[in-house]
């Protein structure tokens, strides 16, 4: 066969093989018609191409330290948290799922309400919620090193629009906007994702990144460092000076004004002997960038003064106040939002029922409004003691 003919045949065969491979690889396995690429971000798999990420556990391969922080945070436990599961199963509610097992924010649109996902709910608010986009895994670090997850620099990740679709369901974002933190340019990340210098990926360069432990209301030491309780004995002459608080004064005498907000707590106070001293109690929200405690669903803080006689026996447990934003059904019965705004303090005058003994001032943090003081989910955040 002449060489030109052979060459022509060879070209025809090669073209045929090329067509064959093209037809096979561009075929419909699997065939997903007209799929919006953003929708595929939600955890699906495609036939070929770069590595597909479908679980946060894959992130641990390179970001072990950050993964561990997240895993032990309440974002990592958003679904598995026992209290959440208990509430959800008791109330048949599906409202909670979008925030406790959300689809990636950039799939539903940053700043928009989240939509619920059906799979991997156990991972809660996972890595993909904030980082996964159709162009790759976004982060706040310029010129990221190449990696299988295709890291992309995108400052959208630092926007509050990621936080408030969930955290403003119970008004935390609005509270923050009303605070001095907002005016001073401090945002959610300033407190809840403080800067950390370390290799972002195992073996990588040391960079300035952010903590992923999302410390907040579940970290009692953290709350203690931002909220204060003072309990002092007070003679009448000293009162005017004390009440010149910098943020205005809310003076409440629970015995005189009946400022009890617990329905169960409607007992008449015992008769007060003449000469029994008074306490001044001050609660201060000096370091929280939103109301304390924020969120209307569960969080409750009770201020109590326990009075003991000289033998150390409890004489009275005075429920001085409750800090809480009432939730839905409660709202009808008690419309007063008693949360302590950022930067505010509140004073109380508490009449002690006996002439001599000791007192304990307790600021008790509760993860539910109906919990007793000694419940395992009630914590004495701050305890102040004294004698009189």
């Amino acid at each position: 066969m002449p060489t030109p003919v052979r060459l022509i045949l060879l070209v025809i065969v090669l073209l045929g093989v090329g067509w064959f491979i093209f037809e096979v690889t561009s075929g419909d396995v699997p065939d997903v018609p007209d799929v919006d690429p953003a929708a595929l971000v939600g955890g699906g798999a495609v036939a070929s191409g770069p590595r597909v990420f479908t679980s946060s556990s894959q992130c641990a391969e390179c970001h072990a330290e950050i993964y561990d922080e997240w895993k032990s945070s309440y974002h990592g436990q958003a679904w598995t948290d026992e209290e959440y599961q208990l509430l959800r199963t008791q109330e048949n509610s599906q409202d909670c799922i979008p925030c406790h097992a959300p689809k990636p924010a950039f799939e539903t649109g940053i700043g928009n309400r989240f939509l619920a996902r059906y799979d991997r709910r156990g991972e809660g608010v996972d890595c993909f919620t904030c980082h996964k986009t159709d162009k790759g895994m976004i982060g706040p670090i310029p010129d990221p090193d190449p990696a299988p997850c295709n890291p992309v620099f995108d400052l959208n990740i630092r926007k509050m629009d990621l936080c408030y679709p969930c955290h403003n369901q119970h008004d935390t974002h609005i509270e923050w906007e009303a605070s001095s933190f907002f005016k001073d340019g401090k945002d959610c990340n300033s407190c809840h994702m403080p800067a950390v210098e370390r290799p972002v990926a195992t073996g990588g360069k040391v960079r300035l990144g952010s903590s992923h432990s999302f410390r907040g209301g579940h970290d009692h030491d953290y709350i203690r460092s931002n909220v204060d309780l003072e309990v002092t004995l007070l003679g009448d002459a000293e009162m005017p000076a004390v009440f010149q608080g910098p943020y205005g004064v809310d003076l409440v005498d629970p015995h005189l004004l009946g400022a009890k907000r617990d329905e169960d707590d409607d007992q008449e106070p015992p008769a007060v002997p003449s000469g029994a001293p008074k306490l001044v109690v001050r609660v201060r929200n000096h370091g929280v960038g939103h109301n304390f405690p924020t969120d209307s669903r569960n969080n409750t803080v009770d201020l109590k003064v326990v009075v003991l006689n000289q033998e150390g026996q409890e004489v009275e447990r005075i429920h001085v106040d409750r800090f809480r934003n009432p939730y839905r059904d409660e709202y009808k019965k008690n419309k007063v939002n008693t949360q302590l705004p950022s930067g505010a303090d509140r004073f109380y005058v508490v009449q002690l029922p006996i002439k001599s003994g000791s007192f304990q001032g307790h600021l008790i943090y509760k993860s539910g409004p109906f919990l007793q003081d000694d419940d395992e989910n009630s914590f004495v955040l701050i305890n102040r003691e004294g004698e009189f």
Partner: protein
Amino acid sequence: MSRSKWPNLARVAVLGVVLLATGCGEEAGDGKEISGSTNPVTTEGLPAPTYPDLPKRASYLKERLAELGALVKVEETPKVPELVPEEIEELVGELGKTDPIDRMNGADELLSHREIALPVLLDRVMDNNRYDFERSAMVDTIGRMGSRAAAGTLLKLVADDESPTVRSFAALALAEIGDDGVVPDLVLRFKYEEDGFVINALSTALHRLGIACGVEKLISYLDGRIRVRQEAAGTLHEMLGEDFKYDAWAAAGERTEAAKRMRRWWWQHGQELLLRLNSGREVGPGFEKRIIETIFELSQYQMRNVDDARFILEGLGPIAVPFLCRGVTDESQYVRAHSVEVFVRMGRSGESGSEVLRSSVGDPLIRADILRALGVARDQESYSLLLSAVGDPLIDVRICAVDSLGQLGNKDALSTLQALSSNPGDSDELRVALSFSLALLGDRSDLMTVVSLLDSKAPIDVWDLAERIDRLMRLGAGVKGEVDGSYPFDGPPAEKVKFFRADLGV
């Protein structure tokens, strides 16, 4: 759309050879799995999923709402004249008399002065310092006046008034006026109202406006106080046309048994009955406007508003379906997503929307929920769509397709699901869905394994499990095959799981 001319299996086989030759997609070597996925799914013998094109998105609802806005005249609450005629004041005063005859006569007289009397009554009725019987007489008279201008005040009373008597009378007065535009607001009250008398009044009012609603709540009051249970039984009889031999005056044991019978019957057939009772009702422009407004509430930011809207639409059942069908292709992703979610909650009541749902499955955002909705509606025509969706690359879609295949009850799906259950990947949710769907189709071999997960530390969604258990029982696939009266029909999920565990002996 498919671009290949070759049969699927051949293509998969050739692809396997090519990928092996090029060293890619190691997991795809046997041609059974979608390569590149960390959640591989067996697809052997399944057609590749094909869906219709992405449906065109429209703003029909927005446009229709604008039309209705021009059409429906909002009647504002009339203002009280500065000088109320003495005669009217006297007649209004009659409504505060203790003798009911005086009150009745006063009301009759007021009807002939309705133009002047209505604003006065609407003003006085808001005065909480008056006796309940006086305010109830006022509300009743307002209802008899039949003016739509009173609807706003009456709705406020139904929702917020402290007195259950006044709330009840206000609901009935709204029915008396006959404006069906208040239906969505009345339906929402079932979510928040706790008083048996008011629940009964709400059901009666809605029944008079042509809507069957609140049956479950009424059944729960059959164990209540004598007058409450008597009225609840009467309303139920009127609505359902059946009394289940319930006698409010019978001995406690007999009443409990009859209530159980009714509960069980409702649990099994309620959706079908609501579908029958509420289908084909025409809606007035005011009602239509409120339905569309409610659908737009689905795009609200706060979940509590969304939840209220979902509750109303679910309660309206088939009446809301034509509008929800429009919502499925709406411009707003939230309207789309939550409209489909309402279909999921409606169950059989939403079956008339199945065709639209099937044609909208090309929308990847709502695909999973559409498949789920088709399952709960038991739309047999969606069988092949569901079967192919089992091979979808999106895990959410696979889970919902598997769920719905179980609900459809077509045993042809058994082999596919069994094949998939031999290699479900690492998704707990898919495993659970497979086990329950197989159980619904008669294969319970894996059910115990899944139930035993309840005792593990695995992050199993108990609520989801309870829902599946409920479905299993409802469709007659309970382990004992018979649901007795002790099943917590309306109980919390945890109770259902407890029942199921006891039933299985685990």
